[in-house]
């Protein structure tokens, strides 16, 4: 096998991957800068159009969009105190304070440079960890893959926002959606209602675009217009001296981002807030935090860009996406008939290292693009909301149709948009649903394969040591979550009783 560097170089110079990296970053910054349009929605909007692309180009485009969106989210956070992405919420604290002091350009520059540094750190870890970890996956048998799917769903259901109970209910809905179509073992039709469009099942893209993008459009339609951004702002790159002063914050952000990115369910938002808190705790000038501290921007931005790379570790190695955005990336992989795991590294090393190379290009490209794109970006973001929503809606409808040339799928995406909207209104999380849809095939086919081998004896899931370990970990996650929920509700009940007595 050729060495990784040669493979990455070959992909970048012989395919449009490098252009895809640049284009993806620009698109991501644009999407991330629009309040309410998260990185995952920005990626979901692009997903249908990547169907006809070469796999490596498609994946580089998607992951670069993720990189760009993380910086993009900090732009409205700094300029109008409205984070464009959840992960940029921590940047709002000191970013907006700096803007109020007339240092908005400087804040944007710190965000940009910290993001590049965090992203590069994440890529180094990704390259170091991904392939060795993928060899661990060689130990996996069908019972272990089933158990891994259950663990992934359990972790996501317990760690995402909202109650654990609701998380599990939504995960089961996702698994049920995945059963629509022909049965993987026997070809018998399930829940197709004699519709030919459902015989191949419901494409995960349709579910994702519906649940993420369409539901967001429905929510945005009922909200007031976005605040206008300051038109005269330009990015001002920080001095080396300033970045040296922020080295501790950068280190903390990158370290926390690396850990949180690899943890399913954690993601950029948790990483950025934890980094902010820890950077403040370890800073020599903690009193500056909240009043325009450069470290208060550097730490969360380094964190959420490190996450963009390290979240690929569980996604590529085990097929367990750690965040909504990683789930979109996994869908992109599956859409091109590629399965995560050790075989991906063995059979398609050019794709894997091409992806890493593209990520590298994207992180560097972020710097000039972030500076150059500011003026047109501010112009675009300041367009009246009705027009922005209309064009996003048109993009969604066009994108879903392009998947299969089916207007039925467009209707289905709208239906999932309604489901996503209801989930938001009723406090149900999304990610377990998406994960259930993506992992459904893996969970069911490995479950049934394992039982076929064991002649129907469920003991196989305990006899296999990897499977037993993973299932035990899943049960542990659930038990800890239930216990924490019980403690929390007990605390709330005691607090209520005290208020009533007082």
């Amino acid at each position: 096998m050729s060495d990784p560097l040669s493979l990455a170089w070959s992909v970048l110079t012989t395919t449009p991957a490098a252009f895809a990296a640049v284009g993806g970053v620009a698109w991501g910054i644009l999407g991330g800068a629009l309040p309410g349009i998260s990185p995952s929605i920005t990626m979901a909007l692009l997903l249908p159009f990547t169907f006809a692309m070469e796999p490596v180009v498609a994946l580089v485009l998607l992951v670069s969009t993720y990189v760009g969106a993380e910086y993009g989210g900090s732009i409205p956070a700094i300029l109008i105190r409205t984070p464009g992405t959840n992960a940029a919420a921590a940047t709002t604290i000191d970013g907006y304070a700096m803007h109020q002091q007339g240092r908005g350009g400087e804040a944007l520059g710190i965000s940009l440079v910290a993001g590049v540094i965090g992203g590069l750190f994440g890529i180094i870890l990704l390259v170091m960890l991904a392939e060795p970890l993928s060899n661990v996956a060689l130990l996996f048998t069908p019972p272990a893959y089933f158990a891994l799917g259950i663990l992934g769903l359990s972790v996501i259901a317990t760690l995402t926002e909202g109650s654990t109970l609701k998380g599990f209910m939504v995960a089961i809905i996702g698994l049920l959606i995945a059963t629509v179509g022909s049965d993987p073992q026997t070809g018998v039709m399930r829940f197709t209602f004699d519709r030919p469009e459902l015989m191949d099942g419901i494409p995960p893209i349709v579910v994702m675009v519906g649940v993420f993008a369409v539901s967001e459009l429905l929510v945005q339609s009922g909200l007031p217009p976005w605040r206008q951004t300051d038109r005269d702002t330009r990015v001002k790159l920080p001095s080396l001296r300033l970045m040296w002063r922020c080295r501790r914050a950068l280190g903390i952000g990158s370290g926390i981002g690396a850990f949180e990115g690899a943890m399913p369910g954690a993601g950029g938002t948790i990483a950025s807030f934890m980094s902010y808190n820890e950077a403040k705790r370890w800073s020599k000038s903690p009193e500056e935090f909240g009043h325009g501290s450069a470290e208060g921007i550097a730490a969360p931005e380094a964190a959420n860009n490190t996450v963009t790379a390290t979240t690929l570790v569980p996604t590529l190695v085990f097929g367990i996406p750690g965040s909504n955005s990683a789930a979109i990336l996994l869908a992109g992989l599956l859409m091109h008939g590629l399965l995560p795991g050790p075989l991906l590294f063995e059979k398609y090393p050019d794709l894997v290292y091409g992806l890493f190379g593209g990520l590298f290009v994207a992180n560097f490209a972020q710097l000039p693009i972030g500076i150059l794109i500011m003026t047109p970006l501010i112009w675009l973001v300041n367009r009246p909301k009705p027009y922005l929503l209309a064009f996003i809606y048109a993009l969604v409808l066009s994108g879903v149709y392009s998947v299969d040339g089916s207007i039925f799928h467009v209707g289905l995406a709208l239906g999932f948009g309604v489901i996503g909207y209801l989930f938001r209104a009723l406090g149900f999380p999304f990610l377990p649903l998406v994960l259930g849809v993506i992992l459904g095939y893996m969970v069911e086919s490995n479950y049934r394969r394992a039982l076929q081998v064991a002649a129907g004896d469920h003991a196989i899931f305990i006899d296999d040591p990897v499977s037993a370990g993973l299932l035990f970990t899943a049960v542990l996650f659930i038990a800890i979550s239930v216990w924490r929920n019980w403690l929390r509700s007990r605390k709330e009940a005691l607090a209520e009783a005290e208020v009533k007595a007082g």
Partner: protein
Amino acid sequence: MGKDLASGIVMLAISGIVYYGATGIGTSFMSDPVGPAGLPKVLAVVLGVLSLLLIAQASLKLWRTRDKAPAETFEKRWRPHLLAMGMLGIGLGYVVIAEFVGYMAGIALVILATTLYQGAARSWRAPAIAMGGAFSFWLLFVALLNIGQPEGVWVRLLRSLGV
């Protein structure tokens, strides 16, 4: 808290419907011990159990917080949802007409309807932007990227005439 109770009841109904639907799934001589209906049934049962837990949890919380919160006005409570349904209606309208009128006309109508629905000024600008936007979308996706979009009856008619 009433939302959780309602959600639990709906989910319980869904689990029942799914279980009933799963009983109608055919079998095959190639079936393994689980069969095509196995997993849907198990999932339906688990969903049913979780729904009952949610209903119980929500009922307990409702009973504990018996003092009523001040009622929201109809406007405040339902307006965002009604606005959302209007947006949904625009998308459904596209689904109904796109295969007849074709991509460019359909998307132009979506852009126009959405901008007016969202409160854009009723002037020449809205239809002009809608038509310009639709043309740009067609140019980008159909002409340049060769990504298929609804053709419309006219294009299919012309094609059948050999034009």
